[in-house]
């Protein structure tokens, strides 16, 4: 019961924050609403027992990426941008595409759950009696060790790329 209520609260935070993010004229307001949306998603993770991901979401997205966004907004000085029109001329084409997506989703709803099957629900996590973080780390450092190392290379490339592009003279 309380889970149902909390789901709708967090879903409202995530969706409402997202909608306000893409409709505000002022970019700083967009960033603040995106933080709201990201916190709502973190709440959804908590609701599903993914505590580690909720922590990563708050620390990395809200603490890291959004600060980066706010720094860049400050650097490029978007003062006069908020007075221009915020949407491009192709917005009607875009909205038509999204309407088509909506119609498809409604067709799925209309067909009912008998028409397509989800997989069978599993009995629980593979290693019982371990916390969420321990399960993730055991999988990450055994089964997904190579992708984990590749992710570190990806981050290294991203650091070098960001520094090179932000430099005045290479």
């Amino acid at each position, binding site marked *: 019961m309380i889970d149902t209520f909390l789901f709708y609260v967090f879903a409202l935070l*995530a969706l409402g924050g997202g909608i306000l*993010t*893409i409709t505000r004229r002022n970019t700083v307001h967009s*960033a603040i609403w995106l933080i709201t949306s990201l916190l709502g998603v973190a709440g959804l993770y908590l*609701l599903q027992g993914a505590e580690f991901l909720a922590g990563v979401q708050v620390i990395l997205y809200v603490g890291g990426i959004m600060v980066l966004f706010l720094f860049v907004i400050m650097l490029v000085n978007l003062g006069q941008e908020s007075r221009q029109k915020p949407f491009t001329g192709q917005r009607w084409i875009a909205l038509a595409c999204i309407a088509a997506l909506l119609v498809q989703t409604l067709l799925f709803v209309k067909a009912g759950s008998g028409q397509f099957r989800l997989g069978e629900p599993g009995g629980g996590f593979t290693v019982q009696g371990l916390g969420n973080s321990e399960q*993730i780390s055991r999988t990450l450092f055994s089964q997904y060790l190579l992708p984990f190392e590749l992710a570190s290379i990806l981050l290294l490339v991203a650091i070098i790329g960001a520094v090179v592009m932000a430099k005045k003279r290479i």
Partner: protein
Amino acid sequence: MHPITVVHYIFLSAALLAVGAIGVLTRRSIVVILMSIELILNAVNVNLVAFSKYLGNINGQVFSIFVITDAAAEAAVGLGILIALFRNKETVNADEVDILKW
């Protein structure tokens, strides 16, 4: 009230993805376009975590960690490009960067 199933999460994820896609397609400011990409990646993560819980398999949450890593890398590189663009063209609007158009 009905209990929350995986289908609720799928539809929430679809809605978040649609909002992010509208943002990418309609906004002029590149900063807001990058924020919309973050919204889309979050929609993917909601789906992965919901199925991880539903199937009783931790792999979905491990995949979400990789998606978050990619989002961080993408934000860093995207904002670096944005700063370089602002230095060279004095604009952050996507429709004013049209030197490849004819």
